[in-house]
């Protein structure tokens, strides 16, 4: 029961953390581009504003999809805080990702269609990596339960550094950062018009944004499992990882999906196999 209440509190705090992270991200990015940047709270202003806008949709499936997206992302985070099953929470997160695409595909809009196809390809790129990372964790701890990770004595990073890099690929895609921001990039005004998000607007766009925060926190939570032994180490790992993401975002151009598939699956899977073999042997 206590874990459940704690998990609920964690769940309530997640969007706050996610929004703040997005704010810091935008500020740091602005600084890297020698701009001043928006207030840290800007993502909250954006989402609040969107929530207050009049709904505008092409069909009701979009509304349903937006709600299912937030719900499943939140549920995945809840499972994380309940220290549940890694694979299960990943599958739950997939529900949202799938419905986001389904909503976009239900609209005869060229931009949403292209975005949806690209989103699916992104999923194709990151899903195997995440599953393999989980398999690595289960080899190290003997189970897929998060609780068992915390029972470990040594941080996972020491035994699975390459899988951490593979997870970094997944994080980059999930954060919608360059070079993998191909499905919903807001820098691609004319070609993509936010792609998979084109036809979601107002409150429904806000829901997707909140769901996105949940996802980001969840994946960062997964990263944090790699250094569970001390809070300082965990925070340091996360800060370094996120800083690297921002840096990569700013120094990379947006690439194409074939490049993404080749690169992410090629390099990511080779790294993973290498690390899995290492775990397998030891």
């Amino acid at each position: 029961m206590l874990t459940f209440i704690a998990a609920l509190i964690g769940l309530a705090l997640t969007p706050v953390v996610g929004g703040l992270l997005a704010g810091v991200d935008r500020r740091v990015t602005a600084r890297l581009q020698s701009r001043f940047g928006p207030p840290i709270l800007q993502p909250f202003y954006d989402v609040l504003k969107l929530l207050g806008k009049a709904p505008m949709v092409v069909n009701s499936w979009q509304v349903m999809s937006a709600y299912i997206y937030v719900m499943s992302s939140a549920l995945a985070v809840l499972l994380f805080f309940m220290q549940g099953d890694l694979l299960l929470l990943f599958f739950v997160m997939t529900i949202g990702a799938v419905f986001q695409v389904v909503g976009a595909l239900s609209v005869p809009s060229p931009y949403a269609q292209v975005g949806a196809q690209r989103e699916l390809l992104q999923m194709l790129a990151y899903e195997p990596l995440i599953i393999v990372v989980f398999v690595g964790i289960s080899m190290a701890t003997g189970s897929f339960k998060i609780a068992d990770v915390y029972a470990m004595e040594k941080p996972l990073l020491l035994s699975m550094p390459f899988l951490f890099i593979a997870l970094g690929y997944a994080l980059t895609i999930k954060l919608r950062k360059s070079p993998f921001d191909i499905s919903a990039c807001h820098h691609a005004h004319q070609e993509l018009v936010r792609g998979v998000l084109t036809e979601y607007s107002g409150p429904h766009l806000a829901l997707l944004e909140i769901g996105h925060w949940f996802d980001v926190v969840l994946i960062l939570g997964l990263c944090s499992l790699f250094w569970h032994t001390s809070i300082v180490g965990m925070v340091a790992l996360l800060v370094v990882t996120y800083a690297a993401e921002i840096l990569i975002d700013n120094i990379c151009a947006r690439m194409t999906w074939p490049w993404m598939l080749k690169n992410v699956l090629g390099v990511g899977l080779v790294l993973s196999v290498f690390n899995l073999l290492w775990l397998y042997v030891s």
Partner: protein
Amino acid sequence: MGLLENWINKGRLKSPWVVHFDCGSCNGCDIEVLACLTPVFDVERFGIINVGNPKHADVLLVTGTVNHRNKKVLKNIYDQMPDPKAVIAIGACGTSGGVFRECYNVVGGVDQVIPVDVYVPGCPAKPDAIIDGVVTALDVVKAKLGLGEMPKVTVID
């Protein structure tokens, strides 16, 4: 619900996402609009984001004159912006038709087709004036929401 409403209103005034529509401009004003996004002006300070899609936008920036071919497009884009929203006519052309006013195919300024909240004249309009225009448009929105007075000046020069 009062608290949430307050927060939402706060968000509305702090997060104007703009969509830029080139309605037959000579491109002079367009370049100035884009200049606002550069590090020199950095409109993201005000929470302004340049989006490509009226469905995501709160403020419509129109540069150039309206002609018979594109007035429908202008109207469509305006209609696809969810409420609350504001329109800013940019440049001499946007405000009145400018140098093209007397042309055979020209309807005139933006306000001939859709309601305009703020005018930013100039040929081309200066980036700082455009930013000022957006900020003024927020005041207009605020007034429309019943949260403040209508700004006295809605023509920025």
